[in-house]
């Protein structure tokens, strides 16, 4: 074990760092874009009936294919990975944002309007806060998925924990595979825990309910 660590510790730390950055960056981009689009769609539910099914079809394209295609156009740069991961991460957040807002009971929207809130105020003070549990739920799904999708970065030689796994697979080195897989799993769990914390902080108890 100590032998293994002295051999691979540097590589592992670097891979974990890269992987972590990929996840943070692409989920952040996705979050901003998805919440923005989700809000837009909630203003125009008729568009949503077209856009959301379209996106969900897109979501079924395997990540490996998509990264491969992007690689052809953009080359071996981190942007390729970030774009691919962001696009995949958008959908769960977008959908949950849209649904969360749409499902805010009319009575609250009407009360907000009747109190004299402008449309923006209704959105920021009532709709978004009430949709927040759903939005954070989407964020969690996206983040956990992105941790695993980020493994694909290694496929086009851009590092991350995938590098260890691919190296392990091709050299028949089980220890190396674990060195990539276990930190990835732990990373997913940690992200999930952090999001839980954020959720507890942001959402008042009565709105949390149980489950996700």
């Amino acid at each position, binding site marked *: 074990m100590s032998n293994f660590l002295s051999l691979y510790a540097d590589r592992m730390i670097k891979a974990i760092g890269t992987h972590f950055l990929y996840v943070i960056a692409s989920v952040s981009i996705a979050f901003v874009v998805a919440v923005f689009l989700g809000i837009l769609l909630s203003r125009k539910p008729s568009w949503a009936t077209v856009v959301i099914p379209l996106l969900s079809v897109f979501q079924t394209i395997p990540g490996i294919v998509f990264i491969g295609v992007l690689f052809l156009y953009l080359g071996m740069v981190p942007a390729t990975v970030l774009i691919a991961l962001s696009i995949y991460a958008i959908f769960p957040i977008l959908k949950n944002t849209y649904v969360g807002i749409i499902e805010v*009971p009319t*009575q*609250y929207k*009407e*009360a*907000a*309007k*009747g*109190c*004299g*809130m*402008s449309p923006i*105020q209704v959105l920021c*003070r*009532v709709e978004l*806060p*009430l949709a*927040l549990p759903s939005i954070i739920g989407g964020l969690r799904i996206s983040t956990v998925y992105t941790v695993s999708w980020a493994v694909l970065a290694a496929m086009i030689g851009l590092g991350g924990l995938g590098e260890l796994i691919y190296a392990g697979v091709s050299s028949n080195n089980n220890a190396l595979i674990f060195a990539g897989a276990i930190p990835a799993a732990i990373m997913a769990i940690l992200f999930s825990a952090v999001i839980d914390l954020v959720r507890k902080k942001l*959402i*008042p*108890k*009565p*709105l949390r309910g149980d489950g996700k």
Partner: protein
Amino acid sequence: MIRFENVSKSYGDSLILNNLSFEIQKGEFAVLIGPSGCGKTTSLKTINRLIEPNQGKIYVDGKDISETDRIELRRSIGYVIQQIGLFPNMTVEQNICVVPKLLKYSKEEMSKIVHEMLELVNMPYEDYAHKYPSELSGGQQQRIGVLRALAASPPIVLMDEPFGALDPMTRTILQDEVRNLQKKLGKTIVFVTHDMDEALNMADKIIFMDQGNILQMATPDEMLENPADELIASFMGKRGKDSELPSLSAADFLRADVRTTYINSGVRESIDKMARRRVDTLIVKNQDETYVGTLSISKIKKEGKDHKTIEPLVNLNNSTCYIDEDAPVCLDRLLHGDDSYIVVLNRDNTIAGMITKTSMAKALADAVWGDSL
């Protein structure tokens, strides 16, 4: 304070409000009532421009509201909705402060308002201010809903069936509380309900609507007494003045053992009869037993010497009623007329008896407490 001028609203072909004109005075508690779909809620929502009429003008405080900014307008008018609509993501304190915050009150002002408001409904600040709506009972939630509407002290408060979802007990308590608050704070309130009891309990003025028209606009008393339409009467159900009593007619109140005499009998004879029967009045009839009038001892005393028969002495104007007439009508004549009794006639104009205050009291007592007295 609030004036509707020829306001109409339709959705497609269906006319929701049909050329409404009415006025609600400052400090008045006006209740809009009617069957569902009558336009009462629509009327209410036109006041804070949640709904825009197709035609006509609405004036609040003399100003045409279609020319005021609708957001400003809504901030100056309190609004309470049926499902309460407290924001579940906000505490009681935050909910109460929604409008003050929109109006950019200072922190100190808002905290003062919350304290005052909670005091109004006897909910201690320490216990309730930081609770979320879901931690309150339905009655408490709607109290906060009312406070939220009052927080920025709007002169006008609109309430759309605010107590519809509450149990009858809580409902009555809140009705009284809101009525007291309204009196205390001098608010003009427009209140929508479909419950006539609620309307009668709270209103200064009831506006009864049906199919976009106003059928009647009156005080609760007036409406009880003279419902302008079958529908209104049916809404009030058995809530008429005699609602607690079984329906009674004159027959239930009369005493039949009356002393009568014929119109052609002599004065002497009549005095004898009164003396013997120990009465001061005789009821006078024709030979065919039909009613003529009444004869009182005082009249005989005054003018009796000059006449042989009683005919010129008979009072032809004493109140009468028919035996099958509704009791309230007869009683009204007895209580508000000049005569100390009413002669009750059969439909063929023969004499059935009379109603005196004593016979009335006895019959009423029987009706209320049974025949045990």
